[in-house]
């Protein structure tokens, strides 16, 4: 049985209300299932919800039981683009009923004290984590990024667990919360790759390949360029838990707990796997699900785009027109969109015929199929893997923009 402090026991005994009691009792069951010895305090939680009518019963029970978030908690997209509801809608369409349900389900997290960010990039927008900080998040790309780049600590957790962590402020200490489970287990030797001409999609393809090679092990990258941008790092982080079950990676000299290769591996000498351009190219074919050259839609935004990525998309679209048969969606958070509006990027994208959408998941919850599109081009391996009901073509941002303009795919 997991050890509980006096306060945690009081939570379990119901002294803080039935909502906190239920949340703690679920975490205790998880802790026991994983063999966790104790609970630790979480600094940050990130919660998401589905769109099932039945969920309401649980949220209402928690709130009636007095549940409020005890740690800093942010919200995943809840599926309503307030500026483009009709045009975007949800995975289940854009009826007033489904909007009402999405709004109602969202209102519960607001009542419990959420910061309503409506994005998967909370780590760029004020969910401030430092090395050693404990988090419990929905969204695999953020989890990999926070563990590997920020040096914070969190496992890949599901929606229910994250609510329970938010409500109790506690997380079972297992998996990546423990030093011994964070050691690099496979060396990924990239020294044969020429990164000079590397595109964003090349980084994504490389990481997709690596995820497949290592399965559930923690990779240590050797031979990457010394300077990696935020966007490069996200492109590496996002696919690893798609093709594999990789919760973190090490880049010696960059990952906070891995100043050296030796530190990354925790004194062990793991096997080395060579990767080259042929592997990167082969990954493109695996990520794309079709050989079609006709494109109905182009999407960017899994994970949600950064300021710099939107600026570049706008730059590529300047003075051009998206093909009349193609939809172009650029997904981000509405905080980022405020800046894009001010900068004029939104107007450039819209003038070209695209849409800057906010508060919408462009991956597992993407509402593409509800619009009758069949073939979707993207620069995200994660979106290509998860976005339901459509075929996918994978390429760089530039190749995707060209597809949006011409309606034809000329990617790799």
């Amino acid at each position, binding site marked *: 049985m997991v050890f509980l402090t006096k306060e945690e026991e009081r939570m379990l005994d119901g002294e803080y209300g039935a909502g906190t009691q239920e949340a703690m009792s679920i975490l205790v069951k998880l802790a026991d299932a994983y063999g966790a010895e104790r609970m630790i305090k979480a600094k940050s939680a990130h919660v998401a919800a589905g769109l099932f009518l039945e969920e309401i019963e649980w949220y209402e029970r928690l709130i009636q039981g007095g549940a409020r978030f005890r740690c800093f908690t942010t919200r995943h997209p809840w599926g309503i683009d307030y500026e483009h509801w009709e045009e975007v809608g949800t995975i289940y369409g854009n009826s007033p009923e489904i909007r009402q349900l999405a709004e109602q389900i969202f209102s519960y997290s607001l009542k419990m004290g959420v910061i309503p960010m409506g994005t998967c990039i909370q780590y760029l927008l004020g969910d401030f984590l430092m090395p050693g900080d404990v988090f419990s998040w929905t*969204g695999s790309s953020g989890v990999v990024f926070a563990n590997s780049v920020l040096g914070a600590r969190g496992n890949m957790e599901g929606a229910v667990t994250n609510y329970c962590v938010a409500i109790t402020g506690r997380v079972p200490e297992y998996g990546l919360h423990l030093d011994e489970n964070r050691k690099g287990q496979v060396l990924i030797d990239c020294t044969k790759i020429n990164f000079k001409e590397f595109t964003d999609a090349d980084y994504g393809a490389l990481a997709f390949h690596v995820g497949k090679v290592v399965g559930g092990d923690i990779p240590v990258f050797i031979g990457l360029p010394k300077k990696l941008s935020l966007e490069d790092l996200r492109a590496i982080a996002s696919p690893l838990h798609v093709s594999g079950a990789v919760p973190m990676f090490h880049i010696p000299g960059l990952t906070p707990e891995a100043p050296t290769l030796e530190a990354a591996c925790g004194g062990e000498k793991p096997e080395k796997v060579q990767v080259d351009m042929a592997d990167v190219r082969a990954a493109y074919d695996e990520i794309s699900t079709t050989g079609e050259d006709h494109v109905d839609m182009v999407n960017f935004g899994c994970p949600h785009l950064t300021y710099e990525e939107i600026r570049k998309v706008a730059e590529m679209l300047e003075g051009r027109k998206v093909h009349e048969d193609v939809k172009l969606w650029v997904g981000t958070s509405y905080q980022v969109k405020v800046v894009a509006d001010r900068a004029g990027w939104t107007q450039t994208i819209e003038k070209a015929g695209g849409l800057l959408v906010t508060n919408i998941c462009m991956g*597992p919850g993407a509402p593409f199929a509800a619009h009758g599109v069949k073939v979707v081009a993207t620069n995200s391996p994660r979106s290509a893997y998860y976005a339901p009901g459509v075929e996918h073509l994978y390429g760089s941002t530039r190749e995707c923009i060209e597809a949006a303009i011409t309606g034809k795919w000329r990617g790799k």
Partner: protein
Amino acid sequence: MSIVLRGRGLVKGKAEGEAVVSSQPISFIGGVDPNTGIVIEKGHELEGCDIKGKVLVFPFGKGTTYNPFAIFAMKKRGTGPVAIINVKTEEIVLTGAILAEIPFIDSLDRDPLEVIESGDYVKVDGETGIVEVIKRRKT
């Protein structure tokens, strides 16, 4: 003939029913129709199978973070399994089973994917972790 397996009960409750066994991981979101309980994932070995009212045996869960809510919704709609047996516990399925109050067992003393076959009749006790398998046909 009947075989008794002993494991770890992680969600209490007793249930029994016909077994549906999958050697592949299952995603409840996108993988199963929550209104019917029929597996809809293309190419899945259970594609077309009905898991409603069944004892569902599979290695572990896969898929997105919302899976627990799908399991909960299926229970409420009467389309979910009556019990779940996993080889390796993964929190997405476990939290779904906790929320839906579906008896859940893992860590059996023999590999349930080998011992239990689809069509066997299985009795599950989530309190004691005991699983009784009544074979459909003599082996």
